[in-house]
């Protein structure tokens, strides 16, 4: 059964078809949410919300298009909303710390792999730069799928990637010497 047929059956209430779609795409959804939010529990909440919203909107989805980019587009928007709410909460907590005179607890550094360091560097970029890098390099979407997930033209994906990689390179060269050693990056 191809994806278009699976979606059609899911829209008709076929639970097995719907769950097949969930199992197929929950990993991509969860991973993008995790990359954007940095927390597995938050990512799980967002992923669940994405699938619920996708189910409600599935009837209006153009079945001739691939489903994954559409799901990742929803994921990005919901994660962005969640991050805004988290920033407000963090600002409130920081103000409280400052008012009480207590110093926030800083976790001790641990040995980190190159991929974790790269992720830290990417997280220093704007949300738009992060999104295009995560979709293209971490989740390995094609240029076409990345364009669909971002709602932009393929040519725009290439130009945004080029600029985002330039900014990432600046961050890596300035603050992540470990990644520069031995020609890793």
């Amino acid at each position, binding site marked *: 059964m191809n994806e278009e047929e699976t979606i059609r059956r899911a829209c008709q209430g076929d639970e097995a078809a719907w769950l097949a779609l969930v199992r197929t795409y*929950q990993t991509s959804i969860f991973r993008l949410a995790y990359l954007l939010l940095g927390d597995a529990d938050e990512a*799980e909440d967002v992923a669940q919300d994405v699938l619920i919203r996708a189910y409600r909107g599935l009837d209006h989805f153009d079945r001739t298009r691939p489903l994954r980019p559409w799901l990742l587009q929803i994921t990005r928007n919901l994660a962005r909303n969640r991050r805004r709410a988290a920033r407000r909460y963090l600002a409130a907590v920081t103000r409280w710390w400052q008012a009480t005179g207590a110093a926030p607890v800083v976790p001790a550094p641990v040995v980190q792999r190159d991929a974790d360091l790269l992720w830290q560097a990417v997280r220093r970029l704007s949300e738009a730069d992060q999104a295009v890098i995560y979709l293209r*390099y971490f989740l390995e979407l094609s240029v076409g799928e990345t364009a669909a997930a971002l709602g932009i033209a393929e040519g725009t994906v290439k130009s945004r990637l080029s600029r985002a990689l330039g900014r990432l390179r600046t961050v890596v060269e300035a603050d992540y010497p470990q990644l520069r050693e031995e020609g890793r990056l």
Partner: protein
Amino acid sequence: MSTNPNERWETQLQTIAGDFTYPPTPDLTAAVTEALAADKRIPTPRRLQPVWVALLVLLLILVSALSIPTVRAAVMEWLQIGTVRIWLAEPSPTPTAASPSLAPTTTPMSSVLDVAGKSSLLAAQAQVNFPIRLPALPADLGEPDHVYLQQAEGDMVILVWMQPEEPDQVRMSLHLLGPGAFVWKMQPPDVVEVQVSGTPAFWTQGPYYIKVGSGRTWGSVRLVDGHVLIWTEGNITYRLESDLALADGIRVAESLRN
């Protein structure tokens, strides 16, 4: 491997990114199934609200009055749904000299932000006595980017979503007018009667003026371009401003959730 340093950098980046270790993906099938089942168990109230009883009575009076030619000419100057009155002919008072021209424009953020009362979802919900319901469609919509709370002889909440790729352009706005709030729309070029969830609604196309407030005191006057769907649920009047086609606008209206 490519000798181009930029391409080499990109290839190495891709290799390292591919090595990233994610937390285990949770199995979401049970949680999603349960959430959707709970969604279906909450029925939509179907009993006839008092406002619809009043509207039915008004409709009967209008039908009788429309049989009289002179009355018919006067009555069809305006249409009303909920707390929104749509003037089909030029009403009194007329727009002031300071009002913008009727040349169609897109809806930049500044025109939406001409309204006062910047707030948040939480703060606005704490101050109004009706639920601020959000559309579940389009599926990628999320929470509004801007929230405003105004007084228009009653509470009015304005929710604004911006275009993701053009942050200074409005994608959609939803007005929630509580009991007592009042809005006049003046001379939209087209007004079509439609239905939302089986109840009467109006669909208008801009550009036209919108005035918020009473006949004596206007909270704001602004030009709206694009399509507007107006409907009521209970004692709340909704206005959905967007560039969606009618069928999509109705789907968005019918997707409101708490």
